């Protein structure tokens, strides 16, 4: 081949022969021009970059991460546990001075032990009326509230995304029927239904889960999850359906279908990954609403089971001693406020960063 090229006659201007000079090796300068100046960016990286520029959202992210880390790790190393009644040994009340301690006060037994030279971890927020260390109850309550918020949102996410995607993808009669069901559930007054279902579930579930692993989780929490799984996914389903309807028109979907991909495969591999920003944003905004609902139910006595605390139940409990021990309301209230506010602002920041419609 090489020999033949070399012996080729000079190029006729009208000839269709290839220009040999175009096949020469590139020199260094030309190679340099071809170099990529920076890494090509993905949609996710692009969004994260914009999120990192948003100072407010980043502050909120740091606060959320900080609270989550405290809620996870502090109960492991803390010297008291959330259900331990300090004045009670083996079911017998031995020292009632532990009940209702003010912040940084100690029970009588503890004072004696301190005189003997023992160092004792202070009760930062005092103790409650049952002599339980209040600081660890707040931290553990934060953990429970976050768990409820997180898992309730995950349940909503899974059910809503699958339902919405199927409805949007198949369209036609399937869509019509599925969306009518959504309309009906959507128009039910959700909080009233939640109260009703939580009341009923609390009564009926208790004997069912007795002795199983679920018992430790508590009827209250399970009924909150069931209620979310039954009622709260409709908003997410509508949102995802809307997204799927626009994505369905894209060429890559047509392409996938033309090479014989099945519906389920297209939804899983092509459509849902392209709704990922909507999924993340609305899940982030769902967590505060779940925490709210849980605290509302706790107030009505339908939330998590005693002695397990949640921020809502702590605040609700604190109402009885509000005039003397107002800090017992204020501490969980401020914690709820911080979590919900940070998550709301973070969700807004995520929306600004990931919603391509707002892109400049």
């Amino acid at each position: 081949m090489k020999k033949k090229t070399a012996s080729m006659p000079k190029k006729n201007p009208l000839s269709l022969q290839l220009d040999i000079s175009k096949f020469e090796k590139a020199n260094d300068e030309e190679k340099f021009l071809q170099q990529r100046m920076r890494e090509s960016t993905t949609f996710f990286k692009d969004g994260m970059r914009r999120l990192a520029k948003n100072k407010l959202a980043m502050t909120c992210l740091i606060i959320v991460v900080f609270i989550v880390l405290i809620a996870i790790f502090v109960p492991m190393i803390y010297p008291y546990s959330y259900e331990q009644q300090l004045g009670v040994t083996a079911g017998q009340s031995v020292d009632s001075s532990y009940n209702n301690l003010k912040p940084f006060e100690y029970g009588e037994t503890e004072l004696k032990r301190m005189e003997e030279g023992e160092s004792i971890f202070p009760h930062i927020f005092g103790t409650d009326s049952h002599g339980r260390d209040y600081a660890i109850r707040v931290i553990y309550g934060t953990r429970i509230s976050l768990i409820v918020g997180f898992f309730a949102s995950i349940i909503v996410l899974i059910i809503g995304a699958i339902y919405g995607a199927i409805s949007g993808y198949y369209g036609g009669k399937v869509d019509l029927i599925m969306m009518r069901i959504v309309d009906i559930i959507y128009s039910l007054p959700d909080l009233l239904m939640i109260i009703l279902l939580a009341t009923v579930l609390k009564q009926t579930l208790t004997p069912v889960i007795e002795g199983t692993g679920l018992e430790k989780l508590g009827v209250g929490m399970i009924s909150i999850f069931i209620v979310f799984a039954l009622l709260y996914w409709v908003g997410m389903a509508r949102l995802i359906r809307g997204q799927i309807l626009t994505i369905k028109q894209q060429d890559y979907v047509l392409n996938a279908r033309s090479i014989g991909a099945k519906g389920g495969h297209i939804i899983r591999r092509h459509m849902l990954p392209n709704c990922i920003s909507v999924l993340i944003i609305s899940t982030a905004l769902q967590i505060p609403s779940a925490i709210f609902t849980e605290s509302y139910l706790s107030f009505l006595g339908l939330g998590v089971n005693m002695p397990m605390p949640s921020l809502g139940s702590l605040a609700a409990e604190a109402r009885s001693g509000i005039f003397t021990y107002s800090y017992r309301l204020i501490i969980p209230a401020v914690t709820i406020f911080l979590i919900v506010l940070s998550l709301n602002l973070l969700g807004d920041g995520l929306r600004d960063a990931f919603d391509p419609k707002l892109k400049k």
Partner: protein
Amino acid sequence: MNSKLAFYIVKRVLLALFTVFLVITITFFAMKAIPGGPFLSEKSPSPAVTAQLEAKYGLDKPILEQYGTYLSDVLHFDFGPSIKNRGRTVTDLILEGFKTSGMLGLEAAGIAILIGLALGSLAAVFHNKWIDKIIMVLSTGSVAMPSFVIATLLLLAFCVWVPIFPPNGSTSAGLVLPVISLSLYPMAYITRLTRSSMLDVLGQDYIRTARAKGVSPIKVIFKHSLKNAVTPVITYVGPMIAYILTGSLVVENIFSVPGIGNYFFSSIINRDYPMVMGTTIFLATLMVIMTLLSDIAYKIFDPRVDLS
């Protein structure tokens, strides 16, 4: 009225009717699913007495027959007798409680809409100025706390630390704090809603035209902008009523207002099932009607909305 709108209204009314029917059905069967029945308390009556009581309230009949009877009773606005309040019917209690709660709810809704619209427009007119920022911080902050916490903190602040208002909500001065705690969340929401739709409207061409031809700024804001910016707020009226009604459950309890929410709260605690059912159905119907009205109003006021 065009046929498309008529079709929409008919569709929505049918959906609302079906929703109410569904609520009644769910409530009925949910209550039947609770083990023990309403007569189970600390000092249970003897089996003979229970049987007689059940016969009196028709609880010994087959469940579908009970359901049929209940449906027809509800259609006649008869929710049966309250089990814990001897000698009173549920309808009686609901109507009595609703007089107070209705006032409370209306006041809260009115305040939320008026102040929300005012703050929202103010924020939009002074977009990105300090006044806008303050309003946004306040409205973002006040949606981050559950209503019962707000109510308790208000109680603490204005009845204990600075005793301005009585902590008991049975007098009219005592209703001030419940109204504030109920209206805070919807007010913040309406503020944000108004702000964003106002910003949208203020960027429109016809506003620039109005300004260019020398219409006074006040007139531009009230006549040209606010009138057009108010439509999204209409859709929020339904959900707002729902929020206020469910919020009144806890707020009325905290301030001991003798309203329907307070009755509902105690009937849940006391397991007064006919009362729980009656109040749920009553409140749910009210919410569904309000949502229906606000949706229809939205379509009528904003002809741009696609009806398909």
